[in-house]
Structures are given as structure tokens and as C-alpha cells.
């Protein structure tokens, strides 16, 4: 089997003095959609931020395309072809929609064109001149995803893209993720909503207290349902 696109090994991370990740290990293979599940505070966001290089202190190993990135700065990591869509979306209020969309620089050839992004998210096209944060929650999420598709990044880190959104918008985001997968993007998704995740994910990792405690494929989801309810406390 080919080496994974992303290999995380014994990852530890800290916010100041507080030790949040205690040895996280998992793989993401090229073209997969992998979902991290886990309760509030389990360390899912911190895991994505560690991959992106934006937590204060990290240890362990994170290899992307075989290249170690644990000591790299976040701008260098981004230029390797990893892009991050944060939980709070990170739309800039001093930028209009078009400026938000065009902000991330191209890091690799082969990103989506602006036209292709509008095809995925037609709403954005109509709001180009609006202030970024004047958009509805759903539109902001589309903008946050749309703007990282242009850059040519091949690994997308999406942190709870459905949080707080209406069902129709969740469906639209689900269809988008499926299409991105078809186009060869690799996606590491953080979700609390595993019903949504089950419509797009190939595999799952379950996190608790800063560790990965379980892993299974989408086909095994039904068989793992009881355990999952336990893990997630739902």
C-alpha cells in the first residue's frame, strides 16, 4: 500500500501550560474523506490546528507527502498544499466577499477556478461586494470553504462545517464535499454530527481526552453504532 498522504504519529500539543493532545496517531490516504469524531473538548480542533502549525507547542510527527512538518511554520505548511477552514470560519470583516475569496494565495497549480467555485456555491456570486461578515452563517461557511479551493491545496482540513446551519445548507455542503472527493481532494473532516459524516466519510477516528481511542470504516458504522453513542454521549 502506498504511503499515506498525511501521517500523524504520537502528536502532543499544548496551549501555554495546558497539555491538550497526548499522543494522537492516525493516517489519511490520498483521495479519502476521513472524519474525526469526539465530544466537546476532545482535541479535534487542536489536532487540525497542529497539522496546520498554529498551536503554540507541538511534539511528535506530522508527515505530509512523506515530508516532516512538525517544526515548520504555518505559512510553509500551507504552501505544501494543506488548507484549513476553521470552526469559527474566519471570514474577515474588513474585506468584502470577493477579497475574502481571493485572499489565500495560490500554493500549487490545479486549484478550482472562481467560476467552478461559483458553480458549487452560486450564492457567493450574488454577494461579491458585500462585507464578508454581513453574509448569513451558511454563506459564510460557503465562503470559508470556497476560498481554500482556489489555492491548489490537495488536503483540506474542515472543522465542523455544518455547525449551526440549516438542514438544506448542510445538504449542500455534503454534496460539495462529495464532489470535491470526486475531483481528487483529500479531506480531513471534524464533525460532531455523525449522521452527516456518514454521508461523506470513508473512515472515522474517534478522539477522547486528546487521544485517538477507536477507528473504523464507513461500512462498519452500523456495527459500531452502540459504541459510538457511548463515545459521543448522544
Amino acid at each position: 500500500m502506498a504511503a499515506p498522504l498525511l501521517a500523524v504519529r504520537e502528536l502532543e500539543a499544548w496551549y501555554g501550560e495546558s497539555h491538550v493532545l497526548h499522543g494522537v496517531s492516525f493516517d489519511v490516504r490520498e483521495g479519502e474523506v476521513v472524519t474525526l469524531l469526539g465530544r466537546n473538548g476532545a482535541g479535534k480542533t487542536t489536532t487540525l490546528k497542529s497539522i496546520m502549525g498554529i498551536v503554540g507547542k507541538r511534539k511528535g510527527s506530522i508527515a505530509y507527502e512523506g515530508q516532516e512538518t512538525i517544526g515548520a511554520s504555518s505559512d510553509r505548511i500551507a504552501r505544501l498544499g494543506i488548507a484549513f477552514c476553521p470552526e469559527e470560519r474566519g471570514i474577515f470583516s474588513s474585506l468584502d466577499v470577493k477579497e475574502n475569496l481571493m485572499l489565500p494565495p495560490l500554493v500549487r497549480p490545479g486549484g478550482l477556478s472562481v467560476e467552478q467555485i461559483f458553480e458549487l456555491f452560486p450564492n457567493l456570486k450574488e454577494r461579491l461586494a458585500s462585507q464578508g461578515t454581513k453574509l448569513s452563517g451558511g454563506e459564510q461557511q460557503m465562503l470559508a470553504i470556497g476560498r481554500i479551493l482556489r489555492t491548489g491545496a490537495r488536503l483540506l482540513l474542515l472543522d465542523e462545517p455544518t455547525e449551526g446551519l440549516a438542514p438544506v445548507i448542510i445538504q449542500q455542503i455534503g454534496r460539495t464535499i462529495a464532489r470535491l472527493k470526486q475531483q481528487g481532494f483529500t479531506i480531513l473532516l471534524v464533525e460532531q454530527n455523525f449522521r452527516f459524516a456518514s454521508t461523506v466519510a470513508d473512515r472515522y477516528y474517534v478522539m477522547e481526552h486528546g487521544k485517538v481511542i477507536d477507528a473504523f470504516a464507513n461500512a462498519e458504522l452500523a456495527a459500531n453504532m452502540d459504541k459510538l453513542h457511548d463515545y459521543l454521549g448522544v
Partner: protein
Amino acid sequence: MFGIPTQALFSQLLLGLINGSFYAMLSLGLAVIFGMLNIVNFAHGALYMMGAFVAWFLLNWFGVNYWGALVLAPLVVGALGVVIERTMLQRLAGLDHLYGLLLTFGLALIIQGGFQNVYGSSGQPYAIPPQLTGGQNLGFMFLPNYRAWVVVFSLTVCLATWFAIEKTSLGAKLRAATENPTLVRAFGINVPLMITLTYGFGVALAGLAGVLSAPINQVRPLMGADLIIVVFSVVVIGGMGSIMVSIVTGFALGICEGLTKVFYPEASNIVIFVIMAVVLLIKPAGLFGRAA
């Protein structure tokens, strides 16, 4: 009008506009620097003074005229700013405002003290470039060419800066990095480099203002120390809101000062501080400032 000769009114207005030009260019640089670095740059006045001295050195040591200095002096001051940022200010990232304030204040004292040691407190003359000597008789007043040039040129520089920051994609990166540097960096943009260049640009504006002022005010080690106090009041009055606020407040307060000279000369040196006190009482974040 009110028994005031129009001649006096207009020449004070012009003087106000000139002072306003310097307030605007300096407070603009302070605003840009504060936005990106979160540092109140107390070295700004000293670097303005250096701009004037570099122009003077260029002329007297290297025979480079005013026009050459207008390009070179800001580059020299900007380069010095880059060095200051890389070697000192960068280490303050994440610390309280106060550290940046103290460090830049110390720098200002060192730079000004150094120049005072060598050049004393008196001014070195710097001639108006021959292309801009003389003036126009407008009928109601005499307009010296050099002063008209200073007002038009500063206004152009201010508006160009505003355009670059508010309307271009580079400016969008700058605004975004002001809001959320971590995320902008995680998009692959070299934010530390942007911060360094922003500081360099902000102080280059101060250097440019220094060159502009050399033929008007002479070149003195303490020229910046006197001016910067007023400029900080301008910043406090406007609030560290936006680029346009700095420009408009700078010019408006210069004009206010000029008008006060006409109507109540005794108050002209303090009118800006009075306005500042009143604004602080009513709106502590400044007229257009966002409350912290």
C-alpha cells in the same frame, strides 16, 4: 469678515493646511503601524527628524539634491525601520502595548540625543529647491510655490496610501492580517515579512514628511520631538480607527489650529490639546475609534 483681513485669514489657513499635511502623513504611518504591530511607535518623531537629516547629509556630503532626497531619504529611513523591527520590535510580539511604547520611546531618546550631541539644538538650513521658489499672487493672498507643493504632494501620498490599503489585493492581505494574523499566515502568506515591511513603510512615510519639512522648518534634532506630541493628540482625537480617519483628522486639526491663530492667537498652541481633552471626556476611544 469679523474685522479680520482676508489676507491674514488665508495665510493662516494655508499654514494650517501645511501643518495638517504633516499631521496627516505622520498619523497615517502611526495608524498603519499600530494596526499591524500593535505598537504605538514613539520613535516616529525621531525618524521624521532623521528623514530631514538624511536629506541634509545627501545634499551636503553627496551633492544629491532635494528631488533625489525625496526618493532616497524615505528609503534609508524605511531600511532603518526594517532593521529596528527585525532586531527589536519582533521580540515584543504578544507582549503588552506598554513594552513597545517603552522600547520605541527609548529609541527616540537615543536617536535624538545622538543627533543633538553632534548638531546641537540649532537648525541647519536647507534651501527650497530652485524649481519651487517664488510664489503665485492669487489676489487675495500670496501663495508660496513650495508650500503649495507640500500640501498637494502630501495629500497625494496620503490618498495613494489609502487606495493601496483599501482597494488593492495587497491591501486586502494587510487588512486581513490586521484582523487575524494567524489565519492569514495559515493560508501561506508570510505575515512576519508583511509586518516588517509595514513598519518600514510607516516610518518611511515619516522620513518623507521630514524631507518635505526641511526647507520650511530647517533641520533640527528636536524637530520631531516637538511635532510628535501634537501628532499623538491628533491620533487620540481621531481614534486609531482607519486610514481615512487619520488623513482627515490630520488635515482638519491643522486647519483648526490655523483658524485659531486668526481668531484667538493666544490659544493656537493649545487648541489641539483642548480638543483632545474634550474628545477624551466625551468619547474616550476617539471620535472614530473602535472601543477596545
